[in-house]
């Protein structure tokens, strides 16, 4: 290929001895052509980010590249001395990272950070660098760039910070841009904008883009070609249409099948008596301190929802929409500032902690973060048995119950004597579910229970939650930012924006015929909607 920008040939990166496999990346070969977007897709631990770091020469010393070559402009980057590599980095190959919140220096104006890139490579003088920074900020679509250039990162939103990162990366007109999960930390609507921006830049500048992601929706949206990685190897490599619509490798097939679909299901109305009634619930925080004027922040504003017994309601919204706050008010982790919550006809707002304790059995919660939600110092059996023990069950009986529950959620009975760190993310979410179910609740609140999981694991855990719900006749409030997941699991969907519920209805109604402008924006921003339509 004459327009090949970067040739990775037989790259192998060793893992330290004692790892679960000898190589982090094994015999990886691909070519990145001028003006194309190559997506590397894989689940966590597949070696996709390590491959990207290798190209930038950012491998940690523990992970040496032992075989292969990375050829750029006739030179093998792996053999390049440090000084020469520094000249390539940023100038010829630039990179943007996942976390826009931490990737920028918090105590330096963004314009100066962009100018720094130019300075490091000896381009221009102070005045011209500033002008160039403003120019770049304009190009990446930052509002009022001549003011933003002097703003500190904390003034900018996540999406804007990621735009600044992109501006920095593009400052020296690199011929290759490496994007390591650049939109994973962003909301869908912001993600859609950033993806459009990357697409645009690639078209106008002809930059070759290596795009690392775990999200098939994003891949469908942006890729020209796709490389699928599993256990450090590329198992499938081909053009977008071939890999997405006609995957040949069983792993690719499994991954694509696991991607949840936007299911416009017609669901029957559940006409049992209501279990949970939330009426005009509000939570207002006051920002400002001793000397600053206090301003109210409405996290939840007069939100009302009703859950019939046995029903699943998905609460959908972007970060900061108040969906988690609402759920935490229901379990009284947060005290609401207005409105009422009734469970089984009994008002729980205003109950003292002691009066509320017996009711806690009825309302349980599954948390988002599989790593933070289990106490690392406790054995799994103890974690699951804790709830019943707290509510007066003898320890031995509770342990027996824990074993049964662990088996029920698909783990071994012997798991009781192991510690959380011995389990994978998906397994930990199963433990978290077992802990919630141990109290035999009527209402289960699931706060983004699958958003930290890989797509194939996500599908399994979702299925398990649905199974358990049916088996134990649970009523469920399911919080998610992912409309696809919501549509698959819920009887009804409620969309939240700025603390208010803007739309509520069956998946068919909300997704098929959205009434509110925000719902339409959300649906339009789902990555890979076009591909979705072609899926069988």
């Amino acid at each position: 290929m004459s327009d090949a920008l970067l040739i990775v040939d037989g790259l192998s990166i060793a893992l330290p001895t004692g790892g679960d496999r000898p190589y982090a990346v094994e015999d990886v070969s691909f070519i990145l052509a001028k003006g194309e977007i190559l997506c590397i897709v894989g689940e966590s631990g597949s070696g996709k980010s390590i491959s990207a770091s290798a190209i930038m020469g950012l491998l940690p010393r523990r992970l040496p590249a032992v075989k292969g070559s990375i050829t750029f402009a006739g030179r093998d980057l792996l053999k390049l001395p440090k000084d020469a590599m520094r000249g390539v980095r940023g100038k010829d190959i630039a990179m943007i990272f996942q976390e826009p919140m931490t990737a920028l220096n918090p105590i330096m104006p963004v314009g100066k950070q962009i100018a720094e890139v130019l300075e490091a490579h000896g381009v221009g003088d102070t005045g011209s660098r500033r002008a160039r920074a403003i120019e770049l900020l304009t190009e990446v679509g930052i509002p009022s760039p001549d003011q933003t250039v002097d703003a500190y990162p904390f003034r900018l939103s996540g999406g804007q910070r990621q735009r600044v990162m992109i501006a920095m990366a593009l400052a020296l007109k690199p011929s290759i841009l490496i994007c390591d999960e650049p939109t994973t930390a962003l909301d869908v609507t912001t993600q859609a904008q950033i993806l459009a921006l990357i697409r645009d830049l690639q078209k106008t500048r002809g930059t070759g883009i290596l795009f690392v992601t775990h999200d098939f929706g994003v891949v469908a949206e942006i890729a020209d070609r796709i490389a699928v990685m599993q256990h450090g190897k590329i198992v499938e490599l081909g053009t977008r249409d071939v890999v997405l619509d006609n995957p040949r490798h069983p792993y690719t097939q499994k991954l694509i099948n696991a991607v949840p679909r936007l299911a416009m299901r017609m669901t029957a109305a559940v006409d049992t008596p209501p279990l949970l009634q939330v009426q005009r619930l509000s939570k207002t925080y006051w920002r400002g301190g001793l000397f600053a004027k206090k301003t109210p922040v409405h996290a939840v504003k007069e939100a009302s929802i009703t859950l019939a017994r046995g029903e699943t309601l998905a609460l959908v919204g972007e970060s900061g929409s108040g969906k988690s706050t609402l759920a935490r008010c229901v379990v009284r982790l947060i005290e609401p500032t207005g409105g009422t919550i009734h469970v089984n006809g009994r008002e729980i707002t205003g109950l003292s902690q002691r009066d509320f304790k017996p009711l806690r059995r009825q309302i349980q919660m599954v948390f988002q973060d599989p790593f933070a939600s289990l106490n690392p110092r406790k054995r799994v059996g103890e974690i699951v048995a804790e709830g019943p023990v707290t509510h007066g069950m003898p320890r031995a009986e509770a342990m027996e119950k824990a074993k049964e529950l662990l088996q029920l959620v698909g783990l071994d009975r012997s798991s009781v004597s192991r510690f959380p760190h011995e389990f994978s993310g998906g397994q930990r979410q199963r433990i978290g579910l077992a802990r919630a179910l141990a109290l035999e609740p009527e209402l289960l609140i699931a706060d983004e229970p699958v958003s930290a999981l890989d797509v194939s694991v996500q599908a399994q855990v979702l299925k398990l939650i649905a199974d358990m719900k049916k088996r134990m006749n649970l009523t469920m409030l399911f919080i998610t930012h992912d409309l696809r997941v919501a549509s698959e699991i819920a009887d009804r969907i409620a969309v939240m924006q700025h603390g208010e519920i803007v739309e509520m209805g069956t998946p068919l109604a909300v997704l098929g015929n959205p009434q509110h402008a925000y719902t339409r924006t959300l649906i339009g921003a789902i990555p890979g909607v076009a591909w979705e339509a072609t899926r069988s």
Partner: protein
Amino acid sequence: MSGFWKRFSRNKGAVIGCAIFAVVVLMAIFAPWIAPGDPWRMAGPPRTDAFDPAHWMGTDMLGRDVWATIVHGARVSLIVGGGATLAALLIGVTLGAVAGYCGGWIDDVLMRFTEFFQSIPSFVLALLIVAIFQPSVGSIVTAVAIVSWPPVARVVRAEFLSLRSREFVQAAVVLGQGTSQIIFGQILPNALSPIVVLSSFMVATAVLLEAALSFLGLGDPNVMSWGFMIGSGRSTIRIAWWTSVFPGIALFLTVLSLNLIGEGISDAMNPRLHDRGEA
């Protein structure tokens, strides 16, 4: 945990520290058998030179055997070091945990209280307490504990502040566990490593404080202490150097060993601190 011991035992300094400290502990336990008799009593002619066959560390101006005073002095050092540290931990952990977990005005009140103690020069405060309550092992332990708990409270509070927002703590609330159960059952076990490291350094500081108090003549008059020996030998250091030098070495080695152990524990508990340079 086996990984912890492996890393700890690979640390040369820590192992040496453990060995020295073990010797001190053995001396304290078996003092009546190692150096029989009352260390305050005259054991030989006054000012016997060091390395004398009968008194290999010599005797002081009153004929007391320096070796016997070192062996018996180990006891009070360890009692004060251990006792004061335990008491300081009790105060510091409780206040820090409550402040960090509850936050709000409780945190404000407790932290201002802590700062009040931190703003008083700790040695002066200790001197004052011992002087008011008559010098005794009990009052020294109390004084040392009162001046050394504030750092514990601050460290524990900081740990609790970051741990209390973790989801496993919220999960415990949702399960219906009470506040004390969450503080001591859920969060405290996760905050132990910095507390353990800090307490080994606190023992060392307490030993030094006790020696300093005794040096100034505010030690327990019934108990032999290294600080007292250094103090009483001070005036004759040019004619009988051994009376202050040997207790000084004993003090130095004990404090050194505790610091080495503390460093070792700290490194073994946070192995990643040392990998950082590689990444």
